[in-house]
């Protein structure tokens, strides 16, 4: 069952995360199935888990909603008990414990979702994690889930700077990887979701980019004009 879920995810639209020295990026591709399809008002691929954590999703969105709801509640319960933000890895582990449960007991199917989590805590600073439907999780400097992971990770491996990147470089790299691995020829703000975490005055600041901001970012990378021409 888990293998089928993993296979399904490798066809889902891409989401990637890149860790920088001073922050992190999570970016995702939205597949537009039909031109009649309108945007949902909330994002589809990037979610806020907690003040200090965001995540990107690949797989069955309805399954993801259940898990995100669960982990958001867990983070608040931790805050309620300890009056502190939950450490990132503990949150990831909590979610993975739930995922694992569905691989072991009969009669239920596993959750068909992979996540990329980006977070900051006072213990280990900025962190990037990936988890799959089996409940395995691992920490990464840069990783990718969904379709075309192989080629995306190839680019990430080549271009990632071992000695640390700045957030700006990470943002540019994220755009570059997505532009090269997306199936569509035109890269528009309607096909992307983009979010960053950074520290401002010692506090975590989440930024979920809106359409205009994504367009600005594409222009910065000279990718926007190309898409206009393509249209």
């Amino acid at each position, binding site marked *: 069952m888990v293998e089928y879920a993993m296979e399904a995810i490798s066809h889902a639209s891409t989401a990637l995360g890149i860790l920088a020295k001073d922050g992190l990026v999570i970016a995702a591709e939205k597949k537009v199935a039909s031109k009649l399809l309108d945007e949902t008002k909330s994002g589809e691929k990037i979610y806020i888990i907690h003040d200090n954590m965001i995540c990107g999703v690949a797989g069955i969105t309805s399954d993801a909603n259940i898990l995100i709801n669960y982990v958001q509640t867990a983070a608040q319960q931790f805050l*309620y*008990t*300890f*009056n*502190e933000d939950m*450490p990132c*890895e*503990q949150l990831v582990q909590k979610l993975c414990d739930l995922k694992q449960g569905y691989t072991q007991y009969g009669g239920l199917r596993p959750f068909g979702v992979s996540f990329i989590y980006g977070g900051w805590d*006072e*213990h280990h600073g900025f962190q990037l994690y990936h988890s799959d439907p089996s409940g395995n999780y691992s920490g990464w400097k840069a990783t990718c889930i969904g379709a075309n992971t192989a080629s995306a990770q190839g680019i990430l491996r080549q271009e990632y700077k071992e000695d640390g990147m700045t957030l700006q470089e990470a943002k540019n790299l994220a755009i570059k990887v997505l532009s090269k691995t997306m199936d569509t020829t035109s890269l528009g703000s309607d096909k992307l979701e983009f979010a960053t975490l950074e520290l401002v005055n010692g506090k975590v600041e989440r930024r979920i980019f809106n359409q205009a901001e994504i367009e600005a970012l594409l222009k910065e990378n000279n990718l926007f004009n190309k898409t206009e021409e393509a249209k």
Partner: protein
Amino acid sequence: METLFGITGKDFVITAYDSKAVASITLMKTGEDKSRDLNAHSLMLFSGEPGDGVHFAEYIERNIKLNGIRHGIEMSPKAVASFARRELADSLRSRKPYSVNLLIAGFDVKTNKPELYWMDHLASSAEIPFGVHGYGAYYCLSLLDRYHREDITEEEGIKLLQKCITELRSRLILNMPDFVVKIVNKDGIRVVQI
């Protein structure tokens, strides 16, 4: 009758408790341990219903140690105090609540700050620079008010504590025997003879 002290300083917290076990008007025992080390940089002093204190403190202690083993992260004094408060508050609303007063002292190694939390048996909690539980509070809070500063050194802190104990011995009608003093700082918790 029972007295617990906590005094924060520049980079440490001094705690002290009388080592008496009392039942009604009878002294049952001296050398009673009214403190538990919760992790490397947090400790808890308790007074109140005999038995309840030990039971509650060990319950908190073991949960915090378990948390440390599971996640490999030492809980901050603030997290420890919040957790203890939550447990006490939940217990308060149960059939048989714990009847304990607490002082939680700790040194936050992330922020390099000493912290002291005062908590009563109704689970109201406050972070304070110094605090006393028990009858001793009536005699010592004024002294602490007068002489405590944020930046006192360890020697000054111990002197202040001795001043408080002298006051207790001269004013409180009860016999105040030995106090056990524990100091927590960046290097951990240690017992001090005064």
